[in-house]
């Protein structure tokens, strides 16, 4: 029982780790305040659900298609909003995420509040096969273990890939844009194009996270993708530290361990109160960290813009 609980914490940490890698790429390395990440995640997850359930696609084909669709959405959002001042861009992306959630809640194609069910048969087959192999080690009883393994393998692979990318000339241009986009443009770099690439990659990561969320909850409905979850990502980001991909992994683990740990506190609270308490804790995290340690646990204070 308790092992299953911690497996679940690990799954959430991995999924939101992937989600937050995108925010790190945007906010930590490009200086883009993307507050619409939950919207891209929703687009990814719903694309998979709709392609599989309504159009009979294979789940494994739907995944790359969903990643592509999320990228496409990011290009639309980016081309229109990336010219805006950074605070206006942040507001525009929140509005984008709200529009996505609102559309999913009210449109016919997304099943509204009923949501989408029954897209994960192929995953369950794969998961069952993995469980049968794990059974050889006496681990066959942990039904979420296959998801944990797949999520963390993906997370680590993506993290390493991004770390590698960040060390290239491409990564250097992104950091330059974070520092001063006019100076970067004055040196012949196409700032808008790089920002679009950064946003597009973040959207792709959000879509992959959305895929795993879908597998985890087995059922898609709009509140799973509430824009508030972008704030969870930022809490993980400030916890782990700016301009550090390793920090995302640490941040996500600590964040979810603490957050889910509140469930273990036996304080005779109602379920609703416990849920509220979790959000209050996230809020306090954001408040205290931005005040006390804005660079986070592993962040680099030299790469934090602290200019007013």
């Amino acid at each position: 029982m308790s092992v299953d609980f911690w497996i679940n914490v690990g799954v959430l940490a991995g999924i939101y780790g992937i989600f937050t890698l995108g925010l790190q790429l945007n906010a930590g390395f490009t200086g883009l305040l993307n507050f619409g990440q939950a919207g891209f995640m929703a687009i990814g997850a719903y694309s998979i659900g709709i392609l599989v359930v309504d159009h009979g696609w294979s789940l494994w084909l739907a995944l790359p298609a969903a990643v592509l669709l999320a990228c496409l959405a990011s290009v639309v959002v980016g081309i229109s909003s990336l010219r805006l001042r950074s605070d206006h861009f942040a507001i525009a992306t929140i509005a984008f995420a709200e529009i996505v959630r609102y559309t999913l809640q009210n449109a016919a194609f997304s099943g509204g509040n009923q949501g989408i069910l029954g897209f994960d048969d192929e995953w369950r087959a794969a998961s069952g096969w993995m469980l049968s192999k794990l059974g050889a080690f006496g681990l066959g009883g942990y039904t979420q273990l296959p998801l944990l393994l797949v999520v963390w393998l993906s997370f680590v692979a993506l993290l390493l890939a991004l770390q590698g990318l960040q060390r290239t000339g491409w990564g250097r241009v992104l950091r330059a844009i974070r520092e001063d986009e006019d100076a970067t443009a004055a040196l012949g770099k196409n700032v808008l194009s790089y920002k679009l690439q950064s946003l597009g990659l973040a959207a792709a990561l959000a879509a992959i996270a959305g895929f795993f969320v879908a597998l985890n909850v087995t059922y898609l409905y709009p509140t799973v993708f509430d824009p508030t979850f972008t704030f969870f990502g930022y809490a993980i980001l400030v916890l782990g530290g700016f301009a550090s991909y390793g920090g995302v992994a640490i941040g996500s683990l600590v964040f979810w361990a603490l957050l889910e740990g509140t469930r273990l506190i036996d304080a005779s609270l109602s379920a609703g109160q416990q849920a509220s308490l979790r959000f209050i804790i996230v809020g306090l995290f954001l408040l205290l960290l931005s005040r006390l340690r804005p660079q986070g646990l592993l962040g680099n204070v030299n790469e934090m813009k602290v200019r007013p």
Partner: protein
Amino acid sequence: MSATPTVRASAAEDDASAVRSRLASPSRLTVLVAVMAVVFCLLAALFGLVPTAQATINGFVAGSYTGLGAIGLTLVLGILKLVNFAHGDLLVAGAYFTILFAWLGLPLPLAMLGAMVATAALALVTEKIVWQPLRQAKAGTLQLFLSAIGLGLVIRFSVQFFAGSQVRTLGANVVDSIALGPLRLGTLQAVALLVGLAAMLLVGLALRFTGIGKEMRAFADNRALAEVSGIDTQHVINMTWIVSGFLAGLAGILYATAIGSFNPNFGLTLLLSLFAATVLGGIGNAYGALVGGLVIGLSQEWSTLMFNARWKPAVGFALLILMLLFMPQGIFGRKKRGS
């Protein structure tokens, strides 16, 4: 690329070119009123006069709480350069303070007044424990954003912790209505409308004629200039939070009264409408926010003539995005240097 280095290098110079109140062009207000009138006539021709008039009344109700709510947002943005994502949750606090005080036994009107004072106090407390220290630490944009979001979560979910997430009412009679010829207006909505319009008028006059009102507007227009002219900075900031909180409380109560039933989550959705009103009116322009609020409220209610009412909030989002993209300086603002 659209912004020039000069723009960012010389924000002060930028502001200096906009010292005068940006609502100094009555012609734009006239144009706006004319456009709204034309839209009204078009809608009346298409959907009939009575439904259009009904939607217009509803629009004024929505416009009054949107406009009053947006004043605080725009003043804080203009004066403190702070995008206050927690502002929507101050409206929520206003509504729930009313419920709390009514539950403690105060008669409803007194409970409402108490709630506004309590929300103003809450806003001042956030200045003291969150914003003032962050300013002194010269916090960056992202730090301020995240703090505002964190603060919003703490307020909203503290409300939810104590009051629950179920739908509530302010406990007043929501069934009674007044007939104005063929139009029907809920009694509560009528009260909300009258109070809202009166409050808008009062706030407008106070900003225009009281010393602190003038100081706040001067600050929002050009902080550097205002500071040089000897205005007590911290006093103006404190007053800004008090006014911002008080009006947010009022707007929350008006919203709760007009809508009838609500839960603690209405702040975030409403916040985007408030942002839309703020941008529409020009950031830092309190009058602009009132006008912007009315435009948003009317647009949302008029949209119900064409689409299902559940798309109402989406109209607010769409207007916000369109304004940011095509008119970030607002309807009364002038194009800034280089843009």
